[in-house]
């Protein structure tokens, strides 16, 4: 009577758990000083990306997001070692160490980054959708942004154009209740962000991002509709950021209580799927633990491989500023 096959459920479980363990390792790496700058993990939000990435044509459809981008890349098929290497600023990274955690790109798998200016990538995503339409392709673009990003004016400039030009673009607000240290209620006049697309002639919805099965169903329905109609869609997805804003944020107590976090942990999408797997007798505790062992081992190997890869050479600093020239050199 279930719509998902056991294989699918196990796949979602493995994907979510892999992201979780991968990013826990990222945090360790960061604390060890092997990664620097700003690094933002997706812990708690895994169901959201897993639901959406399994609803598109990977490698064909366009995906773009902000700096909280590890999960999106990994799910699209970007080699995990290349992602870890980029986070560690290595030559083997997706951008040869030039981008770092915030700037993961993998266009051949449909991933267009990986952007650091809050809200700045949203019109780019509309442009990707525009290109698909211009060429008569039936690709869609998943255009992810945060709840804080949803305050940037360029988002509404983009919605107006998406509605005006009929662009196959799905705007997905990852509402994790916080913009850095500022709670939703303190940055949004009306916390119901799902309403914000209404004035621009597009469908709008608020969805649950903590239940991967429901997320996948909703995502698939919307992706199919947008591919069909070629019209934009605005979606707010309720989720939660268990970690600090970034690896450098050690001040969570400034904006929320331990109690709140513990309560939120009860909605943990991974734990929730574990229940389902057990209830449906698909995987028992032992199997779940074995899978976790397996993934932890896998992540270790990924880290080892990344850590074994060299740093960029100094002279690479001038490479790829332009496709066909170098800037004036030297200090």
């Amino acid at each position, binding site marked *: 009577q279930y719509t998902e096959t056991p294989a699918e459920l196990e796949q979602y479980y493995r994907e979510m758990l892999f992201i979780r363990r991968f990013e826990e390792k990222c945090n360790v790496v960061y604390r060890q000083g092997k990664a620097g700058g700003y690094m933002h993990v997706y812990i708690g939000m895994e169901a959201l990306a897993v639901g959406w990435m399994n609803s598109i044509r990977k490698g064909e459809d366009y995906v773009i997001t902000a700096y909280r981008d590890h999960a999106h890349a990994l799910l699209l098929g970007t080699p995990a070692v290349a992602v870890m290497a980029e986070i560690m600023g290595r030559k083997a990274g997706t951008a040869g160490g030039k981008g770092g955690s915030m700037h993961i790109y993998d266009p051949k798998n449909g991933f267009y980054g990986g952007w650091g200016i809050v809200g700045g990538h949203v019109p780019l995503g509309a442009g990707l959708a525009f290109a698909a339409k*211009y060429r008569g392709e039936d690709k869609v673009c998943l255009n992810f942004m945060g709840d804080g990003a949803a305050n940037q004016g360029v988002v509404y400039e983009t919605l107006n154009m998406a509605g005006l030009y009929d662009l196959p673009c799905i705007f997905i607000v990852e509402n994790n209740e916080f913009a850095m240290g500022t709670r939703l209620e303190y940055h949004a006049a009306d916390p119901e962000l799902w309403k914000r697309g209404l004035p621009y002639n597009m469908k709008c919805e608020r969805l649950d991002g903590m239940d991967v099965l429901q997320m996948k169903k909703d995502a698939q329905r919307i992706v199919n509709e947008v591919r069909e109609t070629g019209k934009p869609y605005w979606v707010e997805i309720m989720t939660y950021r268990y970690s600090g804003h970034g690896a450098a944020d050690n001040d969570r107590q400034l904006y929320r209580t331990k109690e709140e976090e513990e309560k939120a942990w009860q909605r943990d999408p991974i734990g929730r799927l574990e229940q389902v797997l057990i209830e449906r007798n698909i995987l028992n505790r032992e199997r779940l633990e074995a899978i976790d062992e397996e993934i932890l081992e896998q992540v270790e190997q990924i880290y080892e491989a990344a850590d074994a890869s060299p740093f960029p050479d100094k002279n690479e600093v001038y490479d790829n500023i332009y496709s066909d020239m170098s800037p004036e050199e030297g200090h």
Partner: protein
Amino acid sequence: MAATVEITFREALQKALYEEMDRNADIFMIGEDIGRYEGTFKVTRGFFPKYGHRRVIDAPITEAGFTGLAIGAAMAGLRPVVEFMTKSFSILALDQIINHAAKVHYMTNGVVKCPIVFRGPGGAAKQLSAQHSHSMEGWFAHVPGLKVVAPATVEDAYGMLRAAIRDDNPVVFTENPGLYTVKGICPDDNEFIVPFGKANILKEGRDISLIGYSRMTQVNLLAAELLAKDGIDAEVVDVRSLLPLDTDTIFASVRKTHRAIVVYEDWKFGGFGAEIAAKVSEACFDDLDAPVGRVGGLNVPMPYARVLELECIPDENDVLAAVRKLG
């Protein structure tokens, strides 16, 4: 020897745009009032009827938004030509141009290209006041990842716009509104290109180098004529391309004349002319018989009253005064 036509600067831009749009279906234009309304400076007249709303797109007044949309399209392999109604309005799109278009190639270590042109009138027109009269090219030329050109002649308008459109990198293309009606001889050759990074000696001279770009090159030509009457033989160096900058040609000229004045319309203080002057002063230190002079716009928000506006914009007399000052 290819055929030529005598046309205006505006017509040269239109000629390049038509020929390139016919040649490559990936090229589209986007901007405010460029379609049905034919553009405020009428550069895009005739394009909407010919190419329709698919390739000539009227954008809402959302500079950041439509610029970002075009950049995304370029990342996907299209070749957008973005018109800013005036370059002053590109200030609202700077984040998109500088943080996104200019950096994506580097941030992806060369994986993503961003072939896009940002064009439109830059500099003072006539009595458009403080918010509509910016010269932006100096700011753009400060940003690695961008190429920045500012042609002064009909031939260069034609050959450099084509080069800009065929470039695989973001190019800021400046059209001083005072140049649109300038007439000149233009090659009638849809493969004619003026490559970036080459300055052009428009008039040879022995006594002093007048170095400028965009409309100020026309001012320098005028100044050179007047100087000739006083027996001063000025060389007019048209920089044309700010980034990349052709220092070889500029230095060679100064090493020949031993005197130089850099002329630019932008606010003098902190303007791009300072970069040229600093470079010439450093590289030609032993060749200079006098300090490198600069003529720039007054450091004033552009006023409306014509009498005040004319005070702000450099003209040939200001160049002459600067030459005399050098002694």
